[in-house]
């Protein structure tokens, strides 16, 4: 059974939580360890299943909530002090890189691709 810390690092990688240097280290690690590669795929697939099952848009109106939110006191509060939140990030923050890693794992092309601790990835443009 794998160490929990390892799985945590892999899920952090899948979710785009790691800095570039750590992400490269994870890619080298999964390239050298088939078990970690399989775990990475399970973590990736599980997130994809969830998005497919629960990620659909909500279109139907909900008048009760809108009535609450459009009360004059509420709109005045929102206008006076809007929250400083940034727009939500994409649920999938490193799609091209992760897809490339998983594809390389599936094809076995990682063997020999590790050089000097880094992994040559087929697709890295547009990420981060």
């Amino acid at each position, binding site marked *: 059974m794998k160490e*929990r810390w390892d*799985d*945590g690092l*892999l*899920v*952090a990688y899948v*979710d785009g*939580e790691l800095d570039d240097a750590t992400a490269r280290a994870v890619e080298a690690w999964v390239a050298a360890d088939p078990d970690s590669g399989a*775990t990475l795929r*399970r*973590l990736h*697939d*599980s*997130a994809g*299943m*969830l*998005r*497919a*099952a*629960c*990620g*659909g*848009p*909500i279109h*139907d109106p*909900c008048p*009760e*909530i*809108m009535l*609450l*939110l*459009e009360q004059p006191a*509420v*709109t005045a*509060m*929102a*206008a006076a*002090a*809007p*929250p*400083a*939140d940034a727009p*939500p*990030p*994409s*649920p*999938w*923050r490193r799609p091209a890189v992760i897809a490339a890693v998983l594809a390389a794992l599936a094809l076995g092309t990682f063997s020999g691709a590790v050089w000097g601790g880094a992994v040559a990835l087929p697709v890295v443009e547009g990420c981060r």
Partner: protein
Amino acid sequence: MAGRPHSHLTLLLPRLRRFARGLAGAAAPADAIVLEACRRALTTAPPTTTARMFGLVHAVWRDTATDTGEAVDAAAGPHFALGVVRRALRLLPAEQRGLLLLASVEGLSHRECAEALDLPVGTVTASLARARLTLGRLVEDPHDEPGAAP
């Protein structure tokens, strides 16, 4: 909606309702949860952040213990595989269920998930790893046990 004043909550509403449906399994109880969460948010100051608003929805859901398994099955309709995923999600502990939806569906960072559910970031990361692997196992074998009570 043009011409109406928009609040942060109004803009966030579709995501809050989707999150609540993922938790509760059906539209009507989910909207009741979001309505109550909005009421609670409007009594707090300063204005509620996105992460805390999701946290409020999760807290109301836990308070009301709403879980409509039959509605989940019906909502899946002909999409059998999606129904399997939703049923597997319902077998996970409340905290893991919330984290999975927040991170994988709503796109919150681990730090935002931690803020939402008032957990250390390390706990969020470890729980997400455990929950995703368990979910995958449950989808592959629906008769498997998640290994922890909700």
